[in-house]
Every structure is written in C-alpha cells, then in structure tokens.
C-alpha cells in the first residue's frame, strides 16, 4: 500500500565500497588522520629495525643527555635512547590500543547482536547488564583491576577490552533491531534458516559500517586509557613501557627543563588519538548515506 515505487531508483543503505572510499578521501582531516596513523605505525614497528637502540639495559654513563647527534631526542634517567624508546613504547601503546579496541568491539558486537535479535526478556536482561556496567566508571574498574593483577601487555588488552565493550554493544543492538525485521531476514526465517545464520550472514555483515566506526573510536579510547593507566604507574611493567609510562617517568624532568622526556611521548599520544578520531569521523560520514546533503 505504501508506494515505494517513487524511491526505487535510490538503493537505500547500499553504498559501493568505492563510493565510501571516495567520500572518505574527500574528507581532508580524515585523510590526514590516516596518514598520521600510518606514519606512526611505520615509525613504531619498522623504525626499530632501521634505528637500533638498547631498550633493556641501563646505560648509567649516558643518563639525562640533551638531544645530540648520537641521541636525536636525548636520553632518559637510566640512559635509554629517547627516540628508540618512543618507538618501543609507541609499539606497546598502539598494539594494546588496537587489540583492546578490537576486543571491545567484538564482545560488544556479539552481545548487542544477540540481545537485539533475541528481544523480549533476554534482551532486557542483557541490556540491564550493560546499563549496570556503564553506571560504574570504567576508569575506576580499570585501576582497581590493574592494581590487583599487575598485567602484562596481553593482560592490559584483556582488561581494557572487558571494560569498554558496553558502548559498542548498544550501537550494534540498535542496528540489529532495525535489521532483524528486514524482509530478507524474515524470508530466511520463514524457510527455516537458523538464528545463527541470520545473525552471522545478514545482521552482522550489514552492521559493518557501524562496527568499523565504533572500532575506530574504541581504539582511540583504548590508547588514551592505556596511557592513563601507565601514567599512574599501574600499566605495563618496566623494562617494558608505553607512552603513558614514558610520560610518568619524565614527570620529574618537567622542573629541570628536560623537555625531551615529556614533549615527544605527550605529542605522540595527542596526535595518534586525534588521528583515530578524525578517521572515525570520516568513516562515519563516508558510510552514512543519509548524512549527505
């Protein structure tokens, strides 16, 4: 009875990957963000192979040196080369951030999809769990757990993932609520397709834009959280470090003018977090058909 005829030529929700890429590339900030992230990934993971430094042994004959030809960013209080440390710590930050962001998104995705698809009391119960989780400050949980178990890199990933999946789960649930009543899902159910198939073959693939955008912001948040926890001295343990740990270690140097211990990791965190947020914004606009005018 409703005439869809008039809107037919416009395929709703259908965006060719090429169109998405083109729209993303038109967003200058997002492209800059992507360039920054790529640059940092190369810097942190390829850099150490080109610029060899010793980040495990202390070198007490070369502590607190200002930038020089041998140490472009000087050395820290135990003689580690600061540029090398920036690469090494950055690798940990990025790795934890990416992995924790991905873990949070995956948990949230499954939780949200199952809750939204099942509906009824299952949905109500699952979402009350999420509400309760959101009511407790994530940072508080994070600090308490890190203080108790003093985690390594993968421990950090697990803890971060477990405290930050709540928001993605809500997003995916909302998406699932609209998708589960699409005609193709109803058709599949009518001919006897399983619920697992409906979720894995139709609902999740069609939520991919929401998932990707959520994941990007999750990564930015995770990098921030890792830095925060490490800054408070509860992050990965020495001699491992990350940017937050470097900031913490350099804290005392602020008053003695050793800027090279503070500025580089601080700027790196800011740049990477901003870059991921810009990418997230760009992806959201690129995927969102209705957002265009």
């Amino acid at each position, binding site marked *: *009875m*409703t*005439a*869809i*005829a*008039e809107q*037919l*030529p416009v*395929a*709703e*929700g*259908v965006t*060719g990957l090429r*169109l998405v890429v*083109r*729209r993303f590339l038109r967003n200058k900030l997002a492209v800059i963000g992507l360039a920054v992230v790529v640059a940092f990934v190369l810097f942190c993971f390829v850099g150490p192979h080109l610029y060899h430094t010793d980040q495990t042994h202390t070198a007490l004959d070369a502590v607190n040196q200002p930038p020089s030809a041998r140490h472009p960013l000087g050395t820290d209080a135990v003689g580690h080369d600061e540029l090398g440390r920036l690469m090494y710590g950055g690798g940990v930050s990025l790795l934890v951030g990416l992995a924790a962001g991905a873990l949070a998104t995956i948990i949230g995705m499954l939780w949200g999809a199952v809750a939204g698809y099942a509906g009824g009391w299952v949905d109500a119960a699952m979402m009350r769990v999420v509400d309760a989780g959101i009511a407790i400050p994530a940072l508080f949980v994070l600090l308490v757990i890190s203080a108790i178990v003093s985690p390594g890199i993968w421990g950090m990933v697990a803890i971060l993932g477990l405290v930050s999946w709540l928001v993605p789960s809500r997003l995916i649930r909302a998406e699932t609520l609209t998708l589960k009543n*699409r*005609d*193709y899902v*109803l*058709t*599949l*159910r*009518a*001919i*006897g*397709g*399983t619920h697992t*198939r409906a979720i894995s*073959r*139709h609902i999740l*693939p*069609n939520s*991919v834009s929401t998932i990707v955008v959520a994941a990007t912001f999750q990564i930015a948040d995770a990098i921030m959280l890792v830095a925060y926890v490490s800054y408070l001295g509860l992050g990965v343990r020495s001699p491992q470090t990350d940017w937050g740990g470097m900031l913490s270690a350099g804290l005392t140097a602020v008053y003695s003018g050793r800027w090279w211990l503070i500025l580089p990791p601080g700027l790196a965190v800011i740049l990477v977090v901003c870059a991921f947020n810009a990418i997230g914004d760009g992806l959201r606009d690129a995927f969102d058909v209705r957002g*265009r*005018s």
Partner: protein
Amino acid sequence: MTKTILDVEELGVTFRTETGEVPAVRGVSLTVAPGETLALVGESGSGKSTVALAAMGLLSGNARITGRVAIDGTDIVGSTTGKSGAAGKAGAAGSSGAAGKAGAVELSRLRGRTASMVFQEPATALDPLTRVGAQIVEVIRNHRPVSKAAARQEAVELLRRVGIPDPARRAAAYPFQLSGGQRQRVVIAMAIANDPSLLIADEPTTALDVTVQAEILDLLRELAADAGTGVLLVTHNMGVVADFADRVAVMLSGEIVETGPVEQVLLRPRHEYTQRLLAAVPRLAVAEPGESAAQASTTVSARPSAGVTPAAEGSAGEPVVRLRDVSVVFGRGGRAVRALDQVSIEVRAGETVGLVGESGSGKSTAARVALGLIAPSAGAVSLFGADLRRTRGRSRRRLRAGIGVVLQDPVASLDARMSVAECVAEPLRVHRSMSARQRRSRVEEVLDRVRLPRALADRAPRELSGGQRQRVSLARALVLDPRLLVADEPTSALDVSVQQAVLEVIAELQADLGFACLFVSHDLAVVQRFAARVVVLRAGRIEEQGRTDATLLHPETDYTRRLLAAVPVPDPAVQRRRRAARQAVAGAGA
C-alpha cells in the same frame, strides 16, 4: 491566449550527484487553467514528481533548472536571464523587481497562498508534536493578518469543509490520533486554507486504502470545482486519472510523450508507450448496474486471465496449508489488539488463494501465521499435513523447506551485501548439502525459469531494477521446489508494466510446478486476474470467501461491495457512472 494559473515552458532539470549529472526532466511544457485538473502520469523515474516540485520552487540545491515556470504570471524559474541555479536560492534582493522573477521572499508568499501542495504521505506531512488545528492556524497567519482567534475559527471551519467529524474537538487532536485518511484531509485543509488558485497534488491517495482514496478524490474534486482551483495531479494510477482529471500529460524518461483530454488519452491513446502502459494496467472486471451474472462472467473469462488454470479450479485433496480458527492477539491487557479473529483459510496444491482487505485487516498477519513467523494465540496451523504446534527445532525447519516466500519491498527483500547468486542460493545452503558447482548450476537453472539472464548472477542487487529484484526473490523462493508459495504484495511496489511481467512468470511457474500459492494483495484487479479463490478480510475477520469470479463480481456483503465500488477503473466514462452509483449508495446509507 487563455489565462493560465500554471505555465511551464521547456522545463529542464538536471541533478548533480556524486556519480555524475543525472538528467531528470527535459523540455517539459504544460499549462493548467483555473478550474482545470491536469494529470501528470508516468512510471517511477519518469520525472513527474520533479516537475511538481520544480513548479513550487522546492527542488533541492543540487538541481540545475532551465526553462521557465510561472505561477499566476510570476516567474518561479526564469529563462529570460538564462540563469541556472535552484529556484528559491536566487538572491532575495532586487531580483524580484525588474525581471519579474520571484525572489525568496516573494516565493514564500506565493507558496501556500497562490499555490499549495498536497504530498503523498500524510504521516510525514504533518508535524507530529503540534495539534492539527494549530498547524492550520499557522498556515493562515503566515499569509493573512488575522487574529489568532479568527484563524482558529477558520481552522475549525476548514476541518468541517474537508469532512472531519466534530471539527471543533478534532482541531485539538495530534496527528497520531487521526487515521491516515483524516490526516490527509488535514493536509488538504492546510493546502486550501488560503484559497489557492493552484493546487499541486503529488500522489495524494497512493498511501491510502481504496475506500479512503475514493473519499479523498471526491473531496478534492468538490473543492476544486467550488473554488475554480487549477489542479496539477501527479499520479501513477490510471484509475485515479480517469476519476479526476480533465486533461492528461504522459511522461516517459523525463519527457512528455502525449497530452490530451482524458477521454482521448485513456481510450484512444496515440503514443505507443501510452498504449503499452494502459494495456498493462490490470482492469477490474465489474458487473455494471443491471448487468446479469452470466454476462459479467463472460467478460471475465474472455480476458486472458493469467493465473486461473482449469486444473486449479476443481482441485481437491489435502490442503497444503491450513489455518483453523486462528486468532492472533498482539500485546496484552487493555492494550491488546486482535489482529486475527477466528480465521480459517485453506490452500490446496496448484491453487491460488487471494487474500484481500484494507490496511489493518490482518491479511499480512494471516500470511505470516501461515509462514510460521507469528505464532497464533488460538487455533491451529497445519503445514503439509503436520501440525506446526507439534513440531520443534530441526523437524520444523525441515518442514519449512517446502515454503517459498516473496515479500513486498524489492529493496529490503535482498541482502545488499550478497550477490544475486548468493541470495538465490541461500535456501540451498540452509537445507541441502551441495558442492559449490551443483549450487551454481541450480541457481542458473532457476534464474532461467524466472527469465533473468544468467549474467546477472554475479551482480549486486542494487544494480538491478525493482522488477528484476522481485524476480530474484521469486527465484530464491523457487530454488527448493516449494509446495507452497506465499507472496505478500509481491508487485505493489512495482510499475504496472513490470507488475504484469512478474505476475505472468509466477502464473507460468505455478502451472508447471503445481505449487499452492497464498497471494496477499490490496489490489482487487490483480487478485481478480490471478487468484482462483479469494478471501476478503476486514478488521481481522473473514468477511466473505469464495471463487474469485463469483465473489468479486457479485459480492454478498456490503463491505466487499463498497471495496469494489471504490476501485477506480481507467475508463473515464465507466468511472463516472461508477462514481455516481457509489455516491448514491453512500448518500442513501447516510
């Protein structure tokens, strides 16, 4: 030259999109005189709505407009300067003076006062958070310096004129408290609030049931006749054209291919496209007043009826699907809605049963019960002889392998992230263990059957037209050789020419494969051609049922009679008689 209220000359509209320039309208010229109704007809994408929007200066910013549009002598789009750009975006300052071209201020004065518009969907045309009376008052006070109290009085009077019962009280209602037809009446009240000399109606009745559509058309016709308003009616429905229009302009891919008086265009079309279009319109065979039953049924059988195969008519045996005393209640307590009430329907092998009724009558719910998507609150459903209540899990899923489904929306029916082949193959993946190559060959076989080229198999659904997409849905429904096909408004979203092709494919395959078909539709003409038996639903109850030819020609209940009388037929002379008969009945009943 006679005075015209709307004058469109050589209108061209091109949309700039991300994928390049899309021409929508080319060289369209038309006029509407006061008191005259011009119908602009065409299929989807023909550009008819674009012309209507251009006439109001309402096109979006990415439209490039050429040519000239004048309302009551004022240029909305000027050609004298050859300037391009969206109408209404033209600079307000100065441009309205010398050239006689309307600036933004003048344009907004023109809209709602000299010319006003009625849109398709009454649900979105009204502000959901404002009382309807206040919305009418706003329209009045935007254009005329009257006091609030006087405007409120006028609003109530307007609601009375458009036939809203108890208008003083209804003025305080919010849109959601009104029915779809009443909402459209409010939209019309707003449109005529300032006695416009031009009314542009873009598919004003498409979202409404036929009985409501007939009332709204009556209302519009009366209002236009009383006030001498010129009407530009945009529609795809030839019956509505026959009912309402004085002249017709037929559009095809952005151009007008034929213009003329309604009798001439609908009865003696000259352009080959108009002929094709009219030939594809499913016509409701009607018993003319005074005509005997015998005569009438010969009219029906003389028609090349697509679905009614001789075998289908007298088929006996165990029903493929059977609903027995099924009731469905949504919600509970005081808010419970009884969507189906003691409904019993049977469909046998090779037979097509049409399920008709107005929106909210429960026809889609009944189809979904048959599909097992909605569990009945009471009553029993048996599918292929097995009671659905007694089956669970795996055996129930296996039972469902015998069902094929085609739903209404060609866009939402196919997962946009799958290729055509994947869509069609999905039931095979669910129910059969086959190698990729076996699956592929089966898919190609079915694509052949629904007459889609195999080359489409690897395309994405979005690259296909609406008709092709519905045929992909049909292919998916047939891939498991179903014993039951449930089709819920399978062609409602399609243009008539495409609708015919899709229905023919279904009928042909049914004759070959012998599946039972439960066919839900609001279009009585389609059901009449397609179904051997028909079930008329009203508010969740079965009003009557029987053989289609008998039931739809000589209905036993008033409801079915009213439903049939409200269907406009694409013949102006016949439609005029039908209208008179319907109004006489309504008048006698009141």
